């Protein structure tokens, strides 16, 4: 996975409102290659909205998110090429099988390699469930399928919304390893998580939302 030289993601006094209430305001952060950012905050502090805002799914009422030195709205295709977002919902088509879903993901992000899909499914232990419809998969398996997408693309920035939720023991250690490997190779990860993470030799930044 080749890492493009110096990327930088900055958020400048971001503010988001949902309906009448202003969820958070004046949030700043700065993320460079090889760094991990954990967003902390009680329930309802707007962690998910912040992540959606960073990906460009939720337009900010104030402030802007900069990728490199230009706001993300002006370089959508480039930014989305460099980024993968995994939200609460798995985002998989119910009536397609796991393999077809991943092939569709390759079509969406432009990459297309059968081998990568095979290895991703194999690494996450979904190989034997590859041809069953997603409708018949368990919640944990759907979570694993969503995480397969991380291995497929060549994205530098991973934006993960509570990736460890309803994952069993070895799946979380697997994910733990992927994140560690990705950050050490110069990737960037933003994630929200309820239990505190132990990445002994990784620089973690914390962003607290009240």
């Amino acid at each position: 996975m080749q890492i493009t030289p110096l990327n930088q993601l900055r958020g400048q006094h971001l503010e988001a409102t949902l309906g009448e209430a202003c969820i958070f305001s004046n949030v700043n952060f700065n993320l460079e290659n090889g760094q991990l950012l954990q967003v902390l905050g009680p329930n309802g502090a707007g962690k998910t909205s912040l992540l959606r805002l960073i990906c460009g799914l939720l337009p900010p009422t104030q402030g802007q998110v900069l990728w490199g030195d230009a706001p993300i709205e002006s370089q959508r295709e480039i930014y989305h090429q460099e980024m993968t977002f995994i939200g609460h919902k798995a985002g998989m088509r119910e009536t397609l099988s796991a393999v077809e879903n991943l092939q569709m993901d390759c079509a969406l992000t432009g990459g297309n390699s059968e081998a990568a899909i095979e290895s991703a499914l194999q690494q996450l232990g979904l190989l034997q469930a590859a041809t069953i419809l997603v409708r018949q998969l368990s919640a944990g398996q759907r979570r694993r399928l969503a995480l397969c997408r991380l291995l497929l693309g060549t994205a530098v920035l991973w934006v993960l919304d509570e990736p460890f939720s309803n994952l069993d023991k070895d799946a979380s250690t697997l994910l733990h390893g992927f994140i560690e490997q990705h950050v050490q190779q110069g990737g960037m990860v933003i994630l929200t998580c309820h239990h505190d993470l132990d990445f002994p030799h990784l620089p973690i930044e914390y962003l607290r939302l009240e």
Partner: protein
Amino acid sequence: MWQFLHKYGSPKIFYFTAGRWFRWLALPSLCFLLIGLVGGLAFVPEDYYQGEGFRIIYIHAPSAFLAMGIYSMMAISAVIFLVWRIKVAAMWICASAPIGAWFSFLALFTGAIWGKPMWGTWWIWDARLTSALILFFLYLGFIALQSAITDRQVGDKASAILVLIGVVNLPIIHYSVIWWNTLHQGPTISRLQKPAMDPSMVYPLYGMIIGLFLFYFCIAMLRIRCEILKREGRSRWVEDLVREKMARYRL
């Protein structure tokens, strides 16, 4: 021009300017309306074909014209809102929609009433009346979407886009209805077109049109003040304003 837009763009300032404009415009609109109404009813000679019945035009034509004018003004403020993100433009749109709906209803009602003495039926499928009916449904659709979306942020943008879609479709609907009318109605002269009127009949018509447009501006100002209070209900300056009003009211 830029500071001007942004200075007036902030709801706090616009609340007071809207009040001033209302007081300033109320009088002229009242006198124009009086000119139109009284002139149309009393001083204008009766029409050769339709006798006295044609006086309904002084209500029907201006309100239909106003309904169309309000929709195009909503489209202009939708462009202003989407391009320059000025919140007052969004409030202008959702303030003027009910007024437009009311006046297109009035145009339909008076058009139907006019049909009874002239052609013996309450409703005639004339080209202008039908496009007025469709405009009325456009207004109702807009108000329905406006009230269905609870999130103000998204609601404004979605309604602005709906207005723009509507304004692009209006000429298409208008001309296809006219084409459809000539197909079915045959070449009868449609009396609802503004009949060729000699000058003495026309001045009340212009009086009514100007009066109604001024009236629309006054009412839009009032409704914008309500919109600002509804949206900025929690902000500091609204509470001070209300506290001061409460104090004066208690005095």
